[in-house]
Structures are given as structure tokens and as C-alpha cells.
């Protein structure tokens, strides 16, 4: 059982819990004893990480919110005596998002757009999770074409995100030729997204019913994905023979399985620590899906999982498009104004599990809670970075594929 979120309702506290692919909302006693990440989730808007460390010569190296190396607005309070990192406390409050408040009292089509704007590089995963929560609330299933197109969208998102993470790791290790070629592939992947959905970040295509006729360039998309796969495999294989590169990643920012489960982290980070958990395995239209895992839990393992998943996602996209072309679609549109009730939906995003809890009254969202992978990822980064040196910052941070836009719920300071 994993705790994914804590929220207040009717002056009481409710918890979002996960057991494999089953999610529930419960009011449990002795929460702090049962779930080690309860306090972290409760204070996720104020700080994530460990407490400040005091001692002779120890100082706070404050990194961010506007500084080189940190693209998003957020602060890393890094406690060190000048060499090893003793503790990391992350302040996500500099970035104001307030998406949940914006979703409340919105019509469903507006709420989908808001969900896409939580974090653009996980836009499709967020909209998928939101729509699945709506479907759970309305107790209906979308048609096969809609579900398969969603799989294509999620996997395209995974491809460009993984390429971006691996290119950043390569950049951090000054592998300039490899970085340039990976960045080239990253841009090619974004162009493939545009070809597929008319949006480089796969926005404004997801819905309760997705019309197959809106996708005219599927053959061209397959060719491009095949090209990306072929080039990436060539580069990745070559990169593994570069000891300069591998040396920087090997045994850096190790997060073992026990720690990862305690934090509640999901996605490639958890799989790189040896845990066979990927909720795509429970989805009906993922055919012969295989979970990719590694054992070490270090930056290298996280990169290897992402690299293998990139290739696997290319295969899934090609396979799904082939099936989409063969299936006839029934025009089974749903009256959204009739939807009322509460539901939970999830999606296995490139960096972990995105989960939405929604309450809907006659097609209007009255309540929402969003659990995002970056919240857990920041805690995983803070814990795994302890004991290493500041030079490892970029590898450690980039390997989790997280960002403040996905993490921040409200924003405290602004």
C-alpha cells in the first residue's frame, strides 16, 4: 500500500492510497506510523527533503531560485562543510501554479486543458489521468480507438522525455558529440509529436472520445519513429563504451529499493532500483508489455531503464498505429453534462505515476486532487544526493526527470 496524497475535505483529512492498480480514498488512523512519507506529502508546498544540519564549518549553500543550472524557479538548500553534502532541503514555493484551484468549478473541456498545463512535458499523461478519473466517475469506458490513441500519445511523450533526460546526463558529463546527436533526436521527437497531434507537447487532442479521422499522418509518424529508434540505439550502444561517461554515472546518487518504496517514488526511478512495478502492465491494450528493471539504483541504472524504455516505446507506438489503422471506429460520443460522481484515474507518465481524484457534479468539476511524480522525485533526489559532492548535482538531479512545475501545488511565497 502506497500513500500518494493527503488532502483536506469537510474539515477532515483524506488520503489517496494505491495498491497495485487499485486506488482508494480513505480516512485512516495512525497515518504517521503507517506511511513514512505522510509528513513529506503534508508539507509538500513548503519544503521537501531533510532537515537543516548544523555543526562546525557547516553552511547552507543556497542554490536557486534564479541561478545557473536550475531552469525552474525553486531553491535547493544544500548543507555541506565544503565537500560532501550532508543534507538537502528543497523549497518549491517560489513557483505559483494553483492549477487545482483553477480546475475547480470548471467544465470538463476546460478542466482537461488545465490538466495539460500542470506540466507541459507530462501534458498528455496528466490529461489521460484526468480523463480516466472522469470515466471512473461516470462509470464508462472509452472506445478502443480512443484508448489506443492515448497509448500512442503517452509513449510519444515518454520517448521525448527520456531522450531529453539522457541528453542532459550526457551534457553534464561533457560528452558534446553524443549530446548534440541526442538533442537532435529530442527535437526530431518533438517534431514527430507535432506531426501526430499538431502540438509539440501533445496538447489539445485528448478527450473522452478521440476521432481517428483527426490523425492523417500516421504512416509518416511510423517512419520517423523507426528512424529515431535506429539512431538512438546506435548512439546509446556507442555511449556505453565511453568510460568517461559511464564513470560519472556509475554509483552516483544511489537510491536503493527500500528507500525508494519508503519515499513512494514510482516510474523509472523505482524500476532502476529493482522493483518490477509499471502500471501499464494492467492496461488492456498494451499487448505483451514487458517491465524493464535494473538493480543498482544509481544514475546509470536510471539512464539504462530510460534508454531501454525509449526503444520499447518506439516499438509500442509502431505496433499501436498498425492496430489503429485496422480498426473501425464507432461514433460513441458521451454527454458530459450527465456525468456526476467521484473517481480516480492514473497514468504511467515518463517519470512516474500521475493520479487524479475528481468529484464531478453535472459535468462541472467540484473537487480535484493531483498526485504528481515530481513530488516524490524531489524527495528521492534530496535523499540520494546526501554523501556525494556538488559536482554530481546535475547528474543526480537530471536522472530523476523531475521539475518544479510538476511538483508545486499552490506556491507559498508568491
Amino acid at each position, binding site marked *: 500500500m502506497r500513500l500518494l496524497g493527503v488532502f483536506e475535505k469537510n474539515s477532515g483529512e483524506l488520503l489517496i492510497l494505491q495498491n497495485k492498480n487499485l486506488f482508494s480514498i480513505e480516512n485512516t488512523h495512525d497515518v504517521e506510523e503507517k506511511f513514512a512519507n505522510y509528513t513529506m506529502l503534508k508539507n509538500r508546498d513548503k519544503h521537501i527533503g531533510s532537515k537543516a544540519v548544523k555543526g562546525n564549518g557547516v553552511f547552507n549553500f543556497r542554490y536557486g531560485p534564479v541561478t545557473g*543550472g536550475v*531552469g*525552474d524557479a525553486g531553491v535547493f538548500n544544500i548543507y555541506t562543510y565544503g565537500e560532501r553534502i550532508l543534507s538537502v532541503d528543497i523549497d518549491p514555493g517560489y513557483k505559483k501554479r494553483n492549477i487545482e484551484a483553477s480546475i475547480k468549478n470548471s467544465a470538463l473541456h476546460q478542466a482537461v486543458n488545465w490538466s495539460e*498545463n500542470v506540466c507541459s512535458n507530462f501534458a498528455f499523461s496528466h490529461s489521460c489521468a484526468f480523463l480516466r478519473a472522469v470515466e471512473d466517475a461516470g462509470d464508462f469506458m472509452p472506445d478502443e480507438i480512443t484508448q489506443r490513441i492515448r497509448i500512442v500519445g503517452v509513449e510519444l511523450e515518454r520517448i521525448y522525455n527520456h531522450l*531529453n533526460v539522457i541528453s542532459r546526463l550526457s551534457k553534464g558529463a561533457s560528452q558534446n558529440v553524443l549530446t548534440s*546527436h541526442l*538533442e537532435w533526436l529530442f*527535437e526530431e521527437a518533438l517534431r514527430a509529436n507535432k506531426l501526430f497531434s499538431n502540438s509539440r507537447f501533445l496538447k489539445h487532442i485528448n478527450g473522452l472520445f478521440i476521432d481517428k479521422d483527426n490523425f492523417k499522418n500516421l504512416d509518416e509518424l511510423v517512419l520517423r519513429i523507426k528512424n529515431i529508434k535506429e539512431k538512438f540505439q*546506435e548512439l546509446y550502444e*556507442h555511449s556505453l563504451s565511453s568510460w568517461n561517461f559511464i564513470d560519472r554515472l556509475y554509483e552516483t546518487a544511489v537510491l536503493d529499493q527500500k528507500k525508494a518504496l519508503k519515499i513512494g517514488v514510482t516510474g523509472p526511478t523505482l524500476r532502476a532500483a529493482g522493483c518490477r512495478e509499471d502500471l501499464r502492465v494492467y492496461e488492456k491494450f498494451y499487448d505483451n508489455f514487458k517491465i524493464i528493471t535494473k538493480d543498482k539504483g544509481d544514475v546509470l541504472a536510471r539512464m539504462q531503464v530510460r534508454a531501454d524504455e525509449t526503444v520499447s516505446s518506439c516499438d509500442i507506438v509502431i505496433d499501436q498505429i498498425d492496430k489503429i489503422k485496422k480498426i473501425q471506429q464507432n461514433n460513441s460520443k458521451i454527454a458530459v453534462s450527465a456525468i456526476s460522481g467521484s473517481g480516480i484515474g492514473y497514468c504511467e507518465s515518463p517519470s512516474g505515476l500521475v493520479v487524479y481524484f475528481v468529484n464531478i457534479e453535472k459535468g462541472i468539476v467540484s473537487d480535484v486532487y493531483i498526485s504528481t511524480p515530481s513530488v516524490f522525485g524531489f524527495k528521492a533526489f534530496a535523499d540520494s544526493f546526501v554523501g556525494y559532492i556538488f559536482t554530481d548535482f546535475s547528474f543526480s538531479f537530471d536522472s530523476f526527470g523531475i521539475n518544479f512545475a510538476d511538483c508545486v501545488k499552490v506556491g507559498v511565497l508568491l
Partner: protein
Amino acid sequence: MKSWALYGITKKLTEPFKKLKENGKKIDKIFSKSLNIYPIDVGNNGDLNFEMAALATPQYNIHRFGIFLQIHQDTQMFCSFWENVPKG
């Protein structure tokens, strides 16, 4: 496969610059030297960060025009941007 150094120079990834049909205004008087842009995130949803990263990819290679996006280094010029507002 060739060594990285040889591999790097055997592939030309940068796309040729397409000139606009319209006559653009010269910016020599405003920016006489290279343009360094230091983005400050004021709450965007991340796509602008990604698009800026994409501008530095070999396809565009905006460094060749003297434009530098200082995402990973400290510089002194600033610009800010706003988050996308979803279409209603």
C-alpha cells in the same frame, strides 16, 4: 562505429537558414554584439523551458547567429515569460 570525434564531423545536423520573404528590421543599433538571454521562470508550465532547450539543438543551432540562451550559466540579461492560459 567511429570514435566520437570522427562521428561528430561526419554528420551535418544543422539545417540551412531560411530567409524570410518580408524585410526584417536590422537590430544592429540595439544589439551591436551577441545577444545573451537569461530566462527567469515566473511560473511557466515547462514548455517554454523545453522550447528554449530545443532552440539549442543542432537543427536550429542559434549560437551561429550570436544568440545564447543562458540556461546553465550565469549572465546578466533577463527576460521573463508567462504561463500559457488554456483555451476555454
